[in-house]
C-alpha cells in the first residue's frame, strides 16, 4: 500500500523495543515531513553506532573504535587498586552519576542465568581474573543486580577472586530511600537488618 521506502522504515522501527506498529508509522511519517537534517543526523548516528564503537580491551566497557582502552581505564586520576564489577555498560553510567566512586570497572557483558543456559564461560570472567593476576588490585566490588542471576554471578566469582588474594565486597542491600518498611520483602529486610550500621 505504502511506497517501499516508508514501509521499510516502519518495519525497521517496529523491531525496536517498546515500539508498536502505530508508533512506528507515526515516527516514519514525522521523519518524512521533518527537515532533512533531522533524518540525516539520525541516519548518521545509526551508522556510526556500529562502526565507531568498540569494547575496551581492559574492562569491556564501550568505547570509541580504534582505541584499545576506554577513558576510565586510561585515566591517571582513577584508582586502579579497586575494580567494580558490573553486568552492563549502562550500570557504569549509574555509578558514575553519583560521582563518589574513584576506582575502575569491569563489565561482564551479561549475567549467569542457569535456566536460560548462560554460564560463566559466556561472560567476560576470564579476562577479569587475568586482570587481577597481573597484580595491583586490592579490592573487587561485586555490583551485579540483586536478582537471582546477579547473586548467582557474585557467588560464582567470590571464591575465584578470593583465591587470587584480593578483598571481595558486594554492594549492600537494604531499604531504598523513600521506601516503606511495610512493603519490604523478607530477603531485603533480613539483609538490611544484618547489615545495619552504627549511627554516627
Amino acid at each position, binding site marked *: 500500500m505504502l511506497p517501499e521506502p516508508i514501509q521499510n522504515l516502519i518495519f525497521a522501527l517496529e523491531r525496536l*523495543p*517498546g515500539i508498536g506498529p502505530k508508533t512506528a508509522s507515526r515516527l516514519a511519517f514525522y521523519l518524512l515531513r521533518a527537515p532533512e537534517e533531522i533524518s540525516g543526523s539520525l541516519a548518521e548516528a545509526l551508522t556510526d553506532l556500529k562502526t565507531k564503537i568498540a569494547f575496551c580491551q581492559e574492562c569491556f566497557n564501550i568505547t570509541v573504535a580504534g582505541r584499545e582502552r576506554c577513558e576510565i581505564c586510561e585515566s591517571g586520576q582513577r584508582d586502579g587498586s579497586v575494580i567494580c564489577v558490573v553486568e552492563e555498560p549502562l550500570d557504569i553510567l549509574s555509578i558514575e552519576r553519583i560521582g563518589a566512586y574513584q576506582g575502575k570497572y569491569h563489565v561482564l557483558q551479561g549475567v*549467569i542465568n*542457569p*535456566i*536460560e*543456559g548462560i*554460564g*560463566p*564461560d559466556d561472560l567476560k570472567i576470564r579476562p577479569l581474573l587475568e586482570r587481577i593476576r597481573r597484580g595491583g588490585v586490592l579490592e573487587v566490588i561485586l555490583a551485579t543486580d540483586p*536478582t*537471582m542471576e546477579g*547473586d*548467582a554471578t557474585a*557467588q*560464582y566469582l567470590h571464591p575465584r577472586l578470593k583465591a587470587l588474594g584480593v578483598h571481595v565486597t558486594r554492594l549492600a542491600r537494604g531499604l*531504598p530511600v*523513600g*521506601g*516503606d518498611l511495610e*512493603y*519490604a*520483602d*523478607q*530477603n*531485603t529486610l*533480613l539483609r538490611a537488618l544484618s547489615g545495619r550500621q552504627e549511627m554516627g
Partner: protein
Amino acid sequence: MTEPRSYRVEAVVLRHNDWGEADRILALYTRERGKLRVVAKGARRIKSRKAGHIEPFTRVTLQLARGRDLPIVTQAETVDAYLPLRDELAKTGQAAYVVELLDRFTYEDASENHAIFRLLTETLGRITFEPDPWLAVRFYEVHLLGLLGFRPRLFECANCGEAVQAVAQFFSALAGGVLCPKCGAGLPGVWPVSMEALKFFRHFQRSDYAGAQRARPAPEVREELEGLVQRYVTYLLERELNSPDFIKQIKR
C-alpha cells in the same frame, strides 16, 4: 470461562524475563491454575514493592488483575523465600534444574494440579535445608514424571510383559520402561541398566520421601541413575535442558 476481574493465586516463580521499560514477565506454577504467565509492572524499579517477592524460586501469594493480554500482578507477598537457594551456587543450580524441568514439561492450560505444586514446594524446601540435595532432586524427577503421565514401567518388561528378574536389564525411552535381556539385547536406542540402579529407581518410584531417604546408593549407582533419568527426560522433551550443563560448569 470468563476470568474474574481480580483473583488470588499461590505460586512458585519459575523464571522472569525483562519486559518493556521496567516490567517483568513471570512464569509461575500456581496451585490454582497450573502454569501461568503474568506481568509485574515496574518490577525492575528499585522502589518496586513487588520486586523482592517475585524473584525466581520464591513461593508467593499474588493478587492478579485481568489484563489486556496477560494477567497483571497487583500485590505480592512472600510465603517462603528459600533464601539458601540464592546464597549457595550449587543449590541455585539444583533449584534451576527443578524449575526448568517443570517449565519444559507443562503448558499454560489453566488446569490445577495440587500434587505437582506440592511436589515442587516440598522439593525446593528439601534443597534449601538438606546438605546434599541429590536425593531430593532424584525423587522429584521420578515423581514428576509419574504425575505428568510419563511414569516408566520398571517392574515388568515393557515389551513382553514378563516380570523383571534380578539381572542387569535394558531401558528403552521409546517403550517407556525396562526391557528384559531377551527383548532388549541388540535393539538400537536402548541403554543398559544395572540391577542396582534399577533397584533404587523402583524404590524411589513407589516410596514416599521418608522411605526414599533410607536408600544409600553407592556413588557409581547414583551417577548411573542420574544419567538414566537425564537421558529419558531428554528423549521425552526432544531437547537438552540448560541447567545440567550449568551444574557441570560451576563444579569446575
